[in-house]
C-alpha cells in the first residue's frame, strides 16, 4: 500500500530529527490535445507518478520532489530534504512553527460520470471539430481557431508524521480557445476558458457543448470587429461578473493571501474599513462544483469559506499552517501545490463579491458617459494594490444606456482606493468564471460577482486619445 510506504518514510524523517514530515504522492493519468483550423496539431497521453517531500528541521523547510516511489527512494528523499533543511536552518533566527490541526484519516474518491481519460480521443477531436465548424457557420469572418483541451484524473495521498492520512481522488477537464476574426485587413481575436474539477467529460456534454462555446466566442469576436477604440481617462463604470471576479481575485484576493498581506497594501489593515458598508468579498473552497473546490488542501486542512471583507471591514486572510501560526488566524485550507514538483503556497479557490441590493437598471442610471465592462483578457496585481485588467468585451454607457462596443481596452487603479468608491452592488445572481492563477505555479480557480458600479475617479481606462 502506498499510504503505508509514505507513513514509514514520514516516521523515518521523524527519527532523523525532523519536527514535521509531509509526503504528498500523486499518480495521474492525463491527456492534452491541441486542435487548430481543422487539424489536430498535437495529441499527447501521459501517466505521471511523483512525490513531494517537505519537512521542518531546525525550524526551516527542506523540500525534495522525486519520481521514485519505492520505500528506499522515499527514505533517500526524506534524508535529502532533512539535510537541506538542516543546512538552511543554520542561517535562520526564529524557527518556523505551524498552527495545530486535527490530523484526519479519510479516503475521498472523485465520482464523475465519464472519466475523461476513458473517453475515446476521437470523441474529443470530434467535439473540437464541431466547435470549429460552428464558429465558421455563425460568422464568415472567422479565420482561425486554436483549441487546447486537457484533462486528467488520479489519486493524491497525503501523509504526515502527525497522523494525517488522506487519499484524495482528483481530476479536471479544461478547455481554452482562441478564435480569430478578419475583416477588411482588421484582425482580432477573443478567448474563452471553461473547466471543471467536479465533473468528467459530461461537463462538455451537459454544460459547455460546442454550440454554446462557439456562440459565446463568436459574439466576442463580432464585438471586437465592430468595436471602436476607448477614450483614455477616468470615467464612471459598471463592471460585469467576470471583471468583478478578476478584480476580486487579482486586485484584492492576492493582498489577502497571508504570505503576501504582510508586504502589501493590506498590511496592518485587519479590522479596518476597506470598503463601503454592505460590500463583502469571500474566498470559498467548499462551493459545490467550484473549479477551486476541494475537501482538503495540500496540508490536510479542511477547506473553508473565508469572509475576507465582511460588510466593508477587512475581516480575515487566507492562510496555510505556517502563516496561520504567524498571524494567529485559523488555518483556512488554502495551501495548494500545482503538483508533486511544487511546494504548497497560499492560493485562492473560488473568490467572489457577495450580491448587494441594487437592481441592474439602477446601476446605469445618471451615467452621462462611462463604460460597461464584461469580458476579461487577463489581469495582474501588484503589492501596492495597483491592478490592471485587460478587457475584451465592453460597451460605452451614454446617458444611462448602452452604446457602441469598445475594443482593446484595459482598466487599472489602486484597488484599496477603488474599493472605497463602490457606488452600488447588484442583487442579481451571477455565474463564476473559470481561470488559472499563476503565482509561480498554476492553480485552477474560479471567480465572479454581481454587477458593481464605480463612480468617476478610481478606475482609469487605457485608450488612445
Amino acid at each position, binding site marked *: 500500500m502506498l499510504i503505508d510506504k509514505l507513513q514509514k518514510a514520514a516516521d523515518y524523517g521523524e527519527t532523523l530529527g525532523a519536527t514535521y514530515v509531509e509526503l504528498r504522492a500523486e499518480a495521474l493519468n492525463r491527456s492534452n490535445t491541441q486542435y487548430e483550423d481543422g487539424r489536430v496539431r498535437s495529441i499527447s497521453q501521459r501517466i505521471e507518478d511523483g512525490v513531494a517531500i517537505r519537512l521542518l528541521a531546525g525550524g526551516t523547510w527542506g523540500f525534495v*520532489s522525486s519520481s521514485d516511489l519505492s520505500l528506499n527512494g522515499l527514505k533517500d528523499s526524506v534524508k535529502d530534504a532533512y539535510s537541506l533543511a538542516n543546512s538552511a536552518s543554520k542561517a535562520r533566527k526564529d524557527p518556523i512553527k505551524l498552527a495545530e490541526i486535527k490530523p484526519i484519516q479519510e479516503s475521498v474518491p472523485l465520482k464523475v460520470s465519464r472519466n475523461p481519460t476513458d473517453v475515446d480521443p476521437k470523441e474529443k477531436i470530434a467535439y473540437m471539430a464541431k466547435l470549429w465548424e460552428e464558429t465558421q457557420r455563425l460568422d464568415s469572418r472567422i479565420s482561425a481557431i486554436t483549441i487546447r483541451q486537457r484533462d486528467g484524473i488520479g489519486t493524491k495521498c497525503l501523509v504526515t508524521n502527525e497522523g494525517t492520512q488522506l487519499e484524495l481522488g482528483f481530476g479536471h477537464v479544461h478547455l481554452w480557445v482562441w478564435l480569430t476574426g478578419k475583416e477588411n485587413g482588421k484582425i482580432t481575436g477573443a478567448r474563452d476558458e471553461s473547466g471543471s474539477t467536479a465533473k468528467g467529460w459530461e461537463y462538455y456534454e451537459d454544460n459547455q457543448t460546442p454550440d454554446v462555446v462557439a456562440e459565446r466566442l463568436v459574439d466576442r469576436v463580432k464585438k471586437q470587429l465592430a468595436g471602436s477604440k476607448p477614450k483614455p481617462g477616468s470615467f464612471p463604470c459598471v463592471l460585469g461578473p467576470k471583471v468583478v471576479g478578476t478584480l476580486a481575485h487579482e486586485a484584492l484576493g492576492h493582498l489577502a493571501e497571508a504570505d503576501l498581506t504582510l508586504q502589501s497594501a493590506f498590511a496592518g489593515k485587519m479590522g479596518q474599513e476597506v470598503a463601503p458598508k454592505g460590500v463583502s468579498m469571500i474566498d470559498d473552497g467548499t462551493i459545490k462544483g467550484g473549479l477551486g473546490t476541494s475537501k482538503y488542501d495540500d496540508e490536510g486542512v479542511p477547506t473553508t469559506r473565508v469572509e475576507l471583507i465582511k460588510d466593508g471591514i477587512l475581516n480575515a486572510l487566507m492562510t496555510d499552517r505556517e502563516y496561520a501560526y504567524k498571524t494567529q488566524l485559523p488555518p483556512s485550507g488554502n495551501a495548494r501545490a500545482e503538483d508533486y514538483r511544487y511546494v504548497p503556497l497560499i492560493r485562492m479557490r473560488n473568490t467572489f463579491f457577495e450580491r448587494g441590493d441594487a437592481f441592474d437598471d439602477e446601476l446605469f442610471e445618471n451615467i452621462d458617459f462611462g463604460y460597461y465592462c464584461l469580458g476579461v483578457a487577463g489581469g495582474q496585481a501588484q503589492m501596492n494594490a495597483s491592478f490592471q485588467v485587460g478587457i475584451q468585451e465592453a460597451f460605452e454607457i451614454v446617458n444611462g444606456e448602452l452604446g457602441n462596443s469598445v475594443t482593446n481596452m484595459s482598466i487599472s487603479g489602486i484597488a484599496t482606493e477603488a474599493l472605497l468608491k463602490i457606488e452600488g452592488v447588484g442583487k442579481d445572481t451571477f455565474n463564476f468564471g473559470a481561470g488559472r492563477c499563476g503565482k509561480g505555479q498554476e492553480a485552477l480557480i474560479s471567480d465572479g460577482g454581481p454587477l458593481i458600479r464605480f463612480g468617476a475617479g478610481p478606475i482609469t481606462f*487605457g485608450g488612445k486619445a
Partner: protein
Amino acid sequence: MKDKQNNLVSLAEKTITYGSEKVDQLEVLIQDNYELSCELVLGQINKAVKSQEAGASVRCVIEHRIGSAFTNSLDQPTLEKTVNRAIAAAKASTPDKTWKDFPQKLKASKISGTWDDSIPEKDPSVFVDIVTKIGKRISERDSSIIIGEAGTGGFYGWTAYANTNGVALSDKGTGVFAYAVLVAPTDSGMTPGVWSIDVNRKFNLDLDYVVNNTVDKVLLAKKTAKGQTESGTVIFGAEALGELLYFALLDSVKGENIVREKSKLADKLDDTIASKILTITDDGLQKGAYATSLFDGEGVPRQTTSIIEKGKLRSFLWNCYWAQRHGVKSTGNASRNLRTGVVDIAPTNMIIPGGKRSREDMLSDISSGYLIQGLQGAHSSNRETGDYSVVGNPAFRIEDGELTGAVHGLMLAGNAFELLKKVVEVGSDVRSHLIGGSSLIGPSIQFNDIQVVAKAD
C-alpha cells in the same frame, strides 16, 4: 558527468530502435534537469529545495497522424511503453496532410560558456551563504525595506534528441541565479514590489546588481510623483520593453502566424517597420547566454537570425513543421512542451545592440517624461493587432532630467507596431533579462509620442 550525457543519448537511440518499425517516423527528446535553491522570505531563510525535472517526450507519425506521449521515468522499459502510448495517440488522431518529416541531420552548431563543472558539485550551504549575504546587504542599505523574497540557486542538466532520420544529439548546461523582490512602506501604504534577477551560466553571480538595482528602485518608489495624461517621452527599461515586445509583437514574427494569416507582418519582409536605429536579432548561439544551446526542441541546430536590421524586417522565426509548410528552413526556434507534446516557436536570446549614451545621460536631456521599469498586464495585449493597454509599475517621473518619484497607476496605451517607429535613442546599458522563458539582452530605449494616461486624483 560525461557518462550521463552518453547514457541519455544512448537511451534516446535505443528508444528509436525499439519503435522505428512500428511507425513511419519517430522522435524522442529526453531531459534530465536538476535544481538546488534556497529562499529567503520576509528577511529570513525559509526553505531549501532540491528538484529533479526528468522527462521524455516521444512523438510519432503513422500515415500522417501525429501522436505524442510523456513519461517522467527515464528507464528503457518505461520509454518503450511511452512509444506505445504515442502510437495509440497517433492512431486516435486525424491525418494531417500537411505533415512532411522530422528534421534531417544538419551541421552542428558551436557554442561556449554554457557549462561549469563546479555548479553540480555545489553544496546547499553555498547558496544559503549567498542568499544570507543578499539579505544582509539589502538591510544594510536601508532597514525600512521589506525583503518579500530573495533567492539563489544552481541548475544543471542534460538533453538528448534522436529521430528516425538518423539524428542523435546531446547537450548539457549549467547556470546559477539570484534575485530579490522588495517593497517598502510609504505614508499611504506600500511601494510596488520591485525586483531584479541575475542569471549566469557559470558560477559568477552579479550580487551588486541584484542588491543595488533593486534597492535603488524601491527607495525611489517610496517617493510619489504626479503624472499627467499626455502623449509624451518614455524610456522603457529593457525588462519592461522586453515584456511588451514578447506579448504584443513576437507572435507576429512567428512563422506559424505567417502561415495561418494571423500576422500583420506577413507581407512586410524587407519593409521598414521600425526606426532605423533599432536592430533585433534572435541569437541561440550567444556565448554563455541564458537560452543558448546546441539544438532546439526538434534537434535542429540553434542559429543566429536577424529579425529587424536597422528598422527593416529581415526574417520570421520558424520551427521545422511551419517552415516545411511555408517552404523555408527552420531557424532552430522549436520550443517543445514535453508534457503536452506541443512543439511551438519561441525566441532564444533576443539581442538589441546598445547605443552610445548611458540611461542617465539620456534622462538628463528630458524635461518631462517617464521611466518604465516594470509592466502590469503585458500578457493581456492583443497579440494579433499589437494593441496594448498596460500599467507601468514601477513608473518613475522624469522632470528636468531628474527622477522625482513613482507615479502610481500610470497607464500606457498604444500599438506595438507603431511603437517600433517611435524609437529615438537606444541606451548603452545592455544587460540580460529573462522574459517568458527566453532572454532579452538589450538596453533601455527612449520613445517619443507615447500615450500615457494618469490616474485621477
